[in-house]
C-alpha cells in the first residue's frame, strides 16, 4: 500500500468529522412528533370539544344526580359517592382538568388569532373563556382566573396560579363578554365555518350567545352584587340586545362515527365501566313529570315495558332491582348505553328555554320591563319544540300537541293542565320565580345537569327535591364541588379544602 493511499484513508476517516458544521449537526431537538404551530381552525374545535367533554360527562353526571334527574343504578356502583353527597376530591380531577385544558386552548387560540387578524376567533375565544370560567366559579367558588392558563414560558411561566375571588372572576367574565361583543360589532372579517362546532361560524348567533350568557351571569349575581348586576340587566333589555331564541340553542351535536360519539355515551359504554347501565331515572323527577302529564318524560327516560316510567328513589342503589324494572336515561340524554342513538345526542351549552326563562325571571324580579308571562310560556314551548321529533317518536304527539296538553290539559280525556304550568300571574315575585325556576328545572332534565343544579342552589327551587336515602349530609344539600385532588397536590396557592356544604359567593339564601 502506497503512502499516498494511507494518507487518503486517514484523511477520509478524519474528514468525516469535519464536514458538517457542529451547530447544524446538533440542531435536531425540535420535536417532530408534535406540531409546533396550529391554525385557528384546528384549535377552536379542540377547545370546544374539551369544554363539551367536561360539561357532557363529569359535570353532567354530577349535576344531574344532585339535581335529582338521575340516581346511581342498582346495577352498578360507579357514582355511589356522588349519590351519597359524599364525593372525594379525586372525583373532580377530570372535570376540572378538561375545563382548564379547554380554556388553555381558547387562550392560545386568542393569541394565534390576534397575530393573524382573525377577529371573530378572538371574540369566540373570549366568549368561551367567559363561559368556562363561569362554569368553574359556579362549581368551585374561588378559582384561578387572572393568573390561570399562563404556564408556558412565553406566557409568563405561572405554574402556581393564585385563586381569585368569585367577584373578581364574575367581573372578568362580564368584561370578556363585553369585549367580545365589541369585537363582533366592529369586525367584518370572515368567521369560522365547520370548525366552529357550536354555531358553524354564525356570528349573529354568537352575539345572541354573548347577550344571553351575560344575562345569565348578571342574574346569578343579582342578589349578591345588585348594584353591579341589576342596571346591566336593565340595559340588555333597554337596548333590545338580541337573545337566544328558538333554534339558536348553543350546543355541540355528536355523531355516530367512532370517536365522534357523545362523550357521555363514550364514557358510560366503555369497557372500564363494564357495559353496565350505571345511571337510573330518579323518582324525584319522574314522578313529578308523570303527575304533570309531561310527555317529555318519555323523551328523557326509557319506559319500563308494561309499567311506564318507574323511577328509583334517590340513592336507593342498594335495593336489589333487576335490570328492566326501572327507567333509565333515554338516548336523547346520551346516557343510554343500550341505545346507540345516545351517540348522536347533543351537549347543551346555552338553550333557548334557558334564555326565555332568564328573561322571565329578570322581568318577574323587576330588573327589566316586559312580559314575564309570555317569556315563561315561551320557555316551556321552546323545550317542547326542541324535543318535538323525539316526542313524536316516543309518544306519537309532536311538540305542539304535547305542549298544549301540558299547558292546557285535555278536558275530554279528563287531563288537567299541569300544576307547574299554571303561572301565578298575580303572585308575588318570589312565587313567580318559583314557577320559572321549576319549569327551567324540568326543561333541563338530562341535558343541562350542571346548570340546573346551579340554579337550584341559587333559587332554592324546585322545592320538592328530597334528601337522598343514603345521604352523608344529614338533610343538607351539596352547595359546591370539592377542589380536585390534583390541585391540592400541585398548586402552591391552593386555598385549602372547602366542604361540599360551604356555599359559593352568590348563594346567599
Amino acid at each position, binding site marked *: 500500500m502506497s503512502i499516498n493511499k494511507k494518507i487518503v484513508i486517514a484523511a477520509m476517516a478524519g474528514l468525516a468529522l469535519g464536514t458538517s458544521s457542529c451547530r447544524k449537526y446538533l440542531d435536531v431537538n425540535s420535536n417532530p412528533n*408534535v*406540531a409546533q404551530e*396550529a391554525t385557528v381552525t*384546528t384549535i377552536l*374545535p379542540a*377547545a370546544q370539544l374539551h369544554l363539551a367533554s367536561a360539561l357532557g360527562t363529569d359535570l353532567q353526571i354530577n349535576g344531574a344526580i344532585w339535581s335529582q334527574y338521575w340516581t346511581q343504578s342498582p346495577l352498578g356502583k360507579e357514582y355511589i359517592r356522588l349519590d351519597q353527597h359524599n364525593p372525594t376530591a379525586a372525583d373532580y380531577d377530570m372535570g376540572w382538568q378538561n375545563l382548564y385544558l379547554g380554556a388553555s386552548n381558547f387562550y392560545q387560540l386568542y393569541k394565534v388569532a390576534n397575530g393573524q387578524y382573525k377577529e371573530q376567533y378572538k371574540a369566540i375565544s373570549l366568549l368561551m373563556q367567559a363561559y368556562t370560567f363561569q362554569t368553574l366559579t359556579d362549581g368551585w367558588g374561588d378559582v384561578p382566573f387572572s393568573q390561570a392558563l399562563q404556564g408556558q414560558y412565553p406566557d409568563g411561566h405561572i405554574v*402556581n396560579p393564585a385563586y381569585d375571588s368569585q367577584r373578581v372572576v364574575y367581573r372578568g367574565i362580564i368584561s370578556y363578554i363585553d369585549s367580545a361583543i365589541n369585537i363582533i360589532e366592529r369586525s367584518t372579517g370572515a368567521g369560522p365555518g*365547520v370548525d366552529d362546532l357550536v354555531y358553524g361560524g354564525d356570528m349573529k348567533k354568537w352575539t345572541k350567545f354573548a347577550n344571553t350568557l351575560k344575562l345569565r351571569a348578571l342574574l346569578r349575581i343579582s342578589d349578591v352584587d345588585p348594584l353591579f348586576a341589576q342596571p346591566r340587566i336593565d340595559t340588555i333589555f333597554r337596548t333590545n340586545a338580541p337573545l337566544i331564541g328558538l333554534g339558536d340553542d348553543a350546543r355541540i351535536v355528536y355523531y355516530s362515527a367512532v*370517536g365522534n360519539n357523545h362523550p357521555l355515551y363514550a364514557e358510560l359504554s366503555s369497557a372500564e365501566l363494564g357495559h353496565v347501565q350505571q345511571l337510573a331515572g330518579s323518582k324525584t323527577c319522574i314522578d313529578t313529570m308523570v303527575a304533570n302529564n309531561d310527555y317529555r318524560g318519555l323523551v328523557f327516560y326509557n319506559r319500563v315495558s308494561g309499567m311506564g316510567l318507574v323511577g328509583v328513589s334517590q340513592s336507593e342503589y342498594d335495593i336489589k332491582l333487576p335490570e328492566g324494572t326501572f327507567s333509565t336515561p333515554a338516548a336523547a340524554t346520551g346516557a343510554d348505553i343500550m341505545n346507540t342513538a345516545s351517540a348522536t345526542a347533543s351537549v347543551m351549552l346555552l338553550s333557548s328555554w334557558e334564555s326565555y326563562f332568564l328573561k322571565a325571571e329578570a322581568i318577574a324580579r323587576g330588573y327589566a320591563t316586559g312580559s314575564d308571562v309570555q317569556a315563561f310560556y315561551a320557555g316551556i314551548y321552546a323545550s317542547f319544540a326542541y324535543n318535538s321529533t323525539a316526542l313524536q317518536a316516543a309518544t306519537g304527539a309532536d311538540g305542539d300537541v304535547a305542549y298544549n296538553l301540558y299547558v292546557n290539559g285535555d278536558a275530554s280525556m279528563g287531563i288537567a293542565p299541569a300544576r307547574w304550568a299554571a303561572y301565578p300571574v298575580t303572585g308575588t315575585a318570589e312565587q313567580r320565580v318559583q314557577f320559572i325556576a321549576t319549569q327551567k328545572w324540568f326543561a333541563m332534565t338530562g341535558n343541562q345537569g350542571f346548570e340546573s343544579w346551579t340554579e337550584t342552589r341559587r333559587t332554592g327551587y324546585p322545592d320538592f327535591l328530597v334528601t337522598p336515602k343514603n345521604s352523608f349530609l344529614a338533610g343538607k344539600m351539596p352547595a359546591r364541588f370539592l377542589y380536585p385532588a390534583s390541585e391540592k397536590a400541585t398548586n402552591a396557592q391552593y386555598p385549602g379544602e372547602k366542604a361540599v356544604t360551604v356555599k359559593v359567593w352568590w348563594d346567599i339564601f
Partner: protein
Amino acid sequence: MKKTSLFLVLMLSAGLTAFAQETPQTHSVSGKVVDEHGKGIKGVTVTVKGGTETAVTDVNGDFMFDAPDGSNLIIVQQVGFATQYIEDEGQSLIITMLTLSKQLEGNVTTALVASRQEKREVGYNATTLGGDELMSASNTSIISGLQGKVAGANITSSTNGPGGSARIVLRGEKSFMKNNNALIVVDGVITNNYDRTISRFNAANPWFSELNQIDFGNSANDINPEDIESVTVLHGAAATAMYGAMGANGAIMYTTKKGKHSSGQKGKMDITFKSTYTQSDVTKIPQTQNMYGQGNIYGGIADDRSEYRSWGYEMDGGLRPWGQVIDGKQMVKPYANQPNNLRDFFNRGKNINNYLSISGGSEKSNYFLSMNAMNASGVVPNTFYNRYNVRFSGNTQLSHNLYSSVNVNYLNTYSRVEASGNGPGSVINNLIQTPRDIPVQELSDLDNNFYAMQFFDTSGTERYGNYNGSYQNPYWTAKNYDNRNKTDRVISDVKIGFKQNDWHIFNRVGTDISADRATYKSPLYSSSAMDAAYSSAFVSPGGYTQTNYNGLRFYNDFVINYNHELSHNFGMNAYVGHNLTVQRDELLAGIIEPNFGGLVLPAYYNLDNNAGPVIGYNNLVNRRTMGLYGNLAFNYQRELFLEIAGRNDWSSTLIQRRQSFYYPAVSAGWVFTERLDGTRFRNNVMNYGKVRISGGGVGSDGIAYTNNNAGYTRNPIRTSYGSVTSPFNGAYAYSVMNAFGDNNLSPERTREFEAGLDLGFLRDRINASFTFYRSYTINTIAPVQLPTSSGYMYNYINVGDVSNNGVEIALRGTPISTRWGLRWELFATYTRNKNTVERLNGGMENVVLGGFDGMQIVAAEGQSLGTFYAKDIEYWKDPKGEWHAVVDPATGLPIATTTPVYKGSYQPKFMASWGTDLSYKGIKLHALFFTKQGGKFYSQNKMNMDANGTSEPTTVNGRNPYVWENSVYQVPGTNIYQANTTRFSPYEYYTTQQQTVPAQGIVDASYVRLQELSISYQIPQRYYERSPFGALEAGIFGNNLALWTAKSNRYDDPEATSAGAMGNGQGFNYTARPALRNYGVYVKVNF
C-alpha cells in the same frame, strides 16, 4: 469545532507520513506457554511491545510470530492469568502463566477505547469475568448470567426465561426519567438496549401499559453469550467518563471471541460445536388455600357454578355438578381441592441451542465466524422464543503498521409471548381467577363445548360453554390473544488503525441497527352462555396493532494514543479522542383499538379489517452528541499509577447555551506490596496489596425534546373512560399539548468518589477486594405535575438530586489446591447501596415513576428512589410504641388512611452471593447462591387472590367474623383510642375494604436463591486421541433452581416484574407470569 477536527486530521496524516516511511526488519519469535503444572495453555495472546503482530497459542501452547527488530519485550496475556512480560533473548521461550489472583490481577477491558489494561493499572473498581464464568449455568441472557458474580450490580431478571426482561443497575438509580441501566458496550461499540415491552406505547395506546403487559424483553438479550470471551463491569463514573453521557450509569464491556493470528504451517482452523438442551418450569406459584371452593355464600349464591371466586362452601369431596347445563347435560366432579391447578396450567418449556464457531488465521489475517440457533418453547401454551445469531469478526494486517478489523453480528429473534396484567387478554389473570376446586388442565380441550369459549349453537347464536361467567378459559386466551415480535438487528464496527512503536491511531465506526416488527391480536367475539342461568356474556370488538420500530445507533471514534516508557521507571500512556454519536428511533404503528370500533371480520388481523378508524401513530426521536476527550496515565515502576481524564460533550438535547458540558476524572492506584518485594511478609502473608482512589464527574445530557415548548397534538380528548377524536364532522382538532419543557434544562450530572483496597494473601489463596463509593447526582430531569389551572399538566424541569452511597466487597479463597489436581474455591460478594432522593425542586412532594393511580412508585425527598406511595390501613402508635390498626367501631373493619403513605422501597438493603467451585482433573462442580434482602414489591396477585378468596389469609377463623388483631378504635371527636372488640367480616374486608388500601398488596421482596448449580466433565483426551476431536466436554446445569422468600410473600418471585427492564417503576408485579427455573445438559466439542 471545525478547527479541532482539522487538527486531528492533520495529526493523523502527519503521523502516518512520519512513520510509514520506515521499512523495518523482523525476526521470528517462538515458544510455548504453560500453566503451573507445565501443561500447554491454548488460546493465549502473545504480542511484542510496539509491534502489531499477534500470535495465539495452539492446543499445545505453542506459538510463533514475527517481531520487528529492536523490540524484544514479549507480552503474554490471557484473561484469568497475570500478564507476563518476558525479554526475548532470541531463543525458544517457555513462559509459565500463573493463575494468580483472578480478581486482582489479569486484564480488564476498560473504557480506554476498548484496549485492555492490566487490572493493577486502574484506580477504580472493575470486575472481569471470563466467558466460562459467565456461562457457568448456560444462561441464555448475558445479564442474567452476571447475577451473583459482580459486587455492586443490581440485576433483575423478570421472568427468567429466554428473551425476558433483564435489568442491570450499577451503584444505584440516579435518574428519574432515564432508564438507569448500565451501558452495554460490545468491543468498544455502545449498543442500543431498548425495551420491547411497553415504553413504545405509553403515548399512543392506552391499550398497553404496565397493567397490561407483554414482555418481549429488552434488546440486551439479543447478544449471544456463547460469543463472549470476557465481560468487564465498570462500576463508576471515573471508569466510564470516556463514554460520555451514555456511561453515566456505569458500563458492561463485552469482549467477543476473535480469531487468532498464527504463523506458518501452524496456522490451523479451530472449530467449536456446542449443543445445549434446557427445560424450564415455573418456580414460585401463588400459594392457595385448600378449604373453600367455588361460590359465594356471603354476597351471592353459595354454590354458584358460574362464580369465579372461592367464597363458597367448605370443600367436602362429594360429587357436585359443575359448569353449564348444555343440551340438558352437566358435568360432575368431586367438590375437592385441586392443589396444583395453577401450576398444572403451565407447560414445561424446552429450549434447544446449537452453537458453531470457526476461527483461524494466518500471519496477516484472522477471522472468527459463529452461528447460533436457539429454539425455545415457553411455559404458557403457544408461546415461543427463537433466536439466531451470526457473527463474523476479522482482522487484517494491511501492512506492518496498518491494520483493519471488522466485526459484524447479525441477530434475529422471533417470539410469541403471553399478555399478563389485568386486561382481558391476560392469560395469567384469567388463570389466577380460578376457583380452588376447578381442574384447570381439563379446560385445555377447547373443542369440548363444556370448556369452549366461542362456538355456534343450533340457532346460529355464538355461545360459550365454559363454566366461568366472568373470566375466560385461560387456554383459550393463550391461543387467541396472539402477540408476536420479530427483530432483525446488525451490530457492527469497522476499524482502521495505525500502530508503530509508541503510537496507535485509529478510527472506528460502530453501528447498531435494529428493525422490530410486532403484532398484537385481540380476537373479536360476542358469546353468550348456553345455560340460561348464566347471565353474563363475553364481548369484545377485537383489535389489532402492528408496529414497526427502526433504531439506529451510530458512533464514530477517532483516537490517537501514545504509550511511552519515559525511563526505566517511568511510563506514560496518553490519548485524545473525538466521538460522534447519532441516535435515531423511528416507530410507526397502526392500531385498531377495541374501544374504537374494533374489527369487522373475526380472526382476520389486518389493518384493512377495521370497523372504526385505524389509528396511525409515529414517533421519531433524534439525538446527537459530539465529544472530545483526553486521558493521561502515568506509572512509576508499575507500582504507582495515576490517571487523569477529561471529556467535553455537546448534546443536541440542550439549548445551545447549555449544550457544552465538561467533566473530569482522576484516579490513582498504589500496589504497595511492591515495596515489600522479597520480604517474608510478602512471600508468606500478603503477596499483593493495592490501594486505589478515584473521583470523577459525569454529565448526562437531556432527554430529546424535553426542553421544547408545548406544541399541538391531535391526541384524543379524554374523559375518565371515554374519548373524542377528530376529524369531527369535518373539523380537525389540534389541542395544545399538555406538557412543555424548560428551555433552560441543564444536563444531569453525577459526581462520584470511590476508594478501594485489593488484597491477596497466602500466595493468593485468599483474595479480597473492597470498594466504598459516594455519588451525588444533581439536576435529574423529570416532568413535574402542574395544577391544570396553569393550562398544562406537566413541565419538564431539572427536578432534584439523588445520592448513592455504598460498599462493594468481593472475596475469593482457595482452601484446597493440590498438585494432583483437586482444587476447591469459594467466593462471595456483598453489595450495599443506600439510595436517597436528596432534594426535589418546584415544591413537589414526589415524582411518580410507575405503578397506577392509587398505588404509585415515586421518588420523594428523603426517601429512596422507588418508594411505594399508596393508601394503607390506618395505624396508631400507643405510648409504649406499639402499632395498632385503627378500625371502625361499627363494622370492625380497618379504616383507610385519607392520604397515601410511604411504604418502603423496591431498593434492597443489601445483596450478597456465595458460591463454590470444586474441580478435579476434568470434573468441575459449581454452585452459586444469591440473596437480596430488605426491599419490597407490590403483588397484584395478592390483591386478586384475597378478593377472590383463594389466598390463605382469607380462611382465618373459618371465614367467620373475628376481631382484627391488636386493633383499636378512635373515640369520635377525641384523640383517645380504645381497644376494639368488634368483629369484622373477612368477606367484607377482602372483597371490598382491602381493595381501597392497595398498600396491603406490598410484601417483602427478600429472597435467597440457588442461582446456579452445574457439573461439567472434560473427557480426558486419551479416550479420543485418534478421533478428530481436540477436546470434548459435557455438563449438566441449572439456574434459578430453588427460591426461598420472606414469610409474608406467599405469592410471587420478587424479581418477576411488570415494569420491564427500562422503567424505574420497578418492584411492581401486576399479575406477571411466574418466573422460571431452567435446567439442562450440554455437549461441547472442539476440533
